């Protein structure tokens, strides 16, 4: 117990240092040039943070999900792109750790991940599925020599060109139905990424997420045996919404802190005088507090449901609604908090070269609306609320 707490504390201290000293220092440049945050990810590798969630028996950090979630927040506060890349990688790691089912290949792989601090990208979305992760067009296809291949047209692959390995969703076999999916872990060296588009976006520019035609050749061992639907319900969907929300909470928190610095500076100039901006900022703070509570309670629910026998509650529709609603709430709160700060601070927040600027935050926060489009989530929730009894 104490050991776990110690591991968490040391991990969080090193993350905070990386966030403050490295990620923050490069955040504006990463955003402006839409470039991969090489310095911050390099520092995370050096701190062995990419294997934080891997159990110690495989050589990982044995850090708790709670500490990793806080790390996503701390990094997102300094540089949203770094936070999001870190969050996505951890979702991939957690999926493997939670669903490897004793596979020797994946156990060896985890050891390698820890040793080499390998960065895993995911290839889930696909052109032609309308954003529906539960269906695939691409399929695992026998190459004829015992090996397997896949070819997938992906509209976005975050940091795909910067990853060491890719975790890709595909149909189990050429003749399998669209919903009969598996996940394949293929190394960058087994993969050909043919660029299909650019990544000149409003925000989250440093995640470098253009489309690719992904071709890979791999062995049968590299297919996770667990059914994709199980991994999706028990891990991928809830963890995505939880860890992404921690990043967006970090972005909103940094915007709020900029507003607070501005208000305090004004108050110090004229002590005793009323500070109308502080009243306005108080409203922003109330929303930030609500946002923080929602994120924290979702993480607590996930922990409780994950610890239940067979992770049973995570396979229910109530669970789908729970974490979908977190994502929807985050996508409303984060941009509204940023624009609230903009209104409180005024022109000094509108300027990109001001210490109170929140332009980058506003643009990054808008990603919350699209990372699984809100409309798509509402469409799922609309059908589930008709049948779920308690939401």
């Amino acid at each position, binding site marked *: 117990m104490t050991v776990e707490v110690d591991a968490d504390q040391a991990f969080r201290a090193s993350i905070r240092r990386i966030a403050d000293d490295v990620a923050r220092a490069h955040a504006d440049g990463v955003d402006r040039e839409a470039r991969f945050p090489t310095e911050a990810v390099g520092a995370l590798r050096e701190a062995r943070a990419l294997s934080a969630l891997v159990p110690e028996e495989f050589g990982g950090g044995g850090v708790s999900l709670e500490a990793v979630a806080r790390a996503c927040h701390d990094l997102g506060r300094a540089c949203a792109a770094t936070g999001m890349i870190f969050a996505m990688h951890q979702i991939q790691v957690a999926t493997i750790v939670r669903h490897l089912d004793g596979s020797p290949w994946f156990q060896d792989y985890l050891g390698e991940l820890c040793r080499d601090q390998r960065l895993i990208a995911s290839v889930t979305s696909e052109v032609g599925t309308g954003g529906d992760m539960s269906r695939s067009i691409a399929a695992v296809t026998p190459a004829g020599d015992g090996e397997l291949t896949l070819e997938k047209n992906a509209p976005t692959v975050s940091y795909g060109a910067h990853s060491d390995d890719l975790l890709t969703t595909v149909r189990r076999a050429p003749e399998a139905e*669209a*919903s009969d999916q598996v996940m394949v872990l293929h190394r960058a060296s087994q993969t050909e990424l043919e660029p299909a588009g650019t990544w000149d976006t409003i925000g989250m520019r440093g995640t470098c997420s253009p489309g690719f035609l992904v071709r890979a050749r791999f062995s049968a061992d590299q297919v996770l045996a667990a059914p994709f*639907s199980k991994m999706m319900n028990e891990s991928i969907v809830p963890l995505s919404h939880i860890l992404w929300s921690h990043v967006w909470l970090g972005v909103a928190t940094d915007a709020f802190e900029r507003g607070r610095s501005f208000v305090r500076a004004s108050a110090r100039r004229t002590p005793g005088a009323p500070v109308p901006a502080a009243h306005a900022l108080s409203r922003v703070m109330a929303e930030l507090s609500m946002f923080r509570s929602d994120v924290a309670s979702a993480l607590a629910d996930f922990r409780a449901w994950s610890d239940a026998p067979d992770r049973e509650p995570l396979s229910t529709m109530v669970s789908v609604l729970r974490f979908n609603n977190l994502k929807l709430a985050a996508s409303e709160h984060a941009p509204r908090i940023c624009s609230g700060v903009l209104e409180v601070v005024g022109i000094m927040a509108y300027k990109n070269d001001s210490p109170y600027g929140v332009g980058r935050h506003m643009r990054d926060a808008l990603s919350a609306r699209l990372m699984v489009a809100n409309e798509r989530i509402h469409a*799922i929730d609309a*059908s589930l609320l*008709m*049948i779920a*009894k308690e939401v």
Partner: protein
Amino acid sequence: MTDPIRDDIRRVLAEHARLPADVQSIPDAADLFAAGMTSHASVNVMLALEDTFDVEFPDAMLKRSVFESVDSIAVALQQIKVSPE
């Protein structure tokens, strides 16, 4: 082979599961999701089952494993009938 519950379940599936194959050709134990039932279609199946059998599935039963085959649906319906909430 005459099992009224399973016959009714198949009628609901034929109408709402939108399977590419004929429902009658799918074995009782076969995985309906692997046979092409989408999660969206499964919600309609659940609603139609509640209507057909005049029951309400409790939240704990609203999960994939309960609706993945004709057999698992029949078991769930029997459980609800035996111990209604």
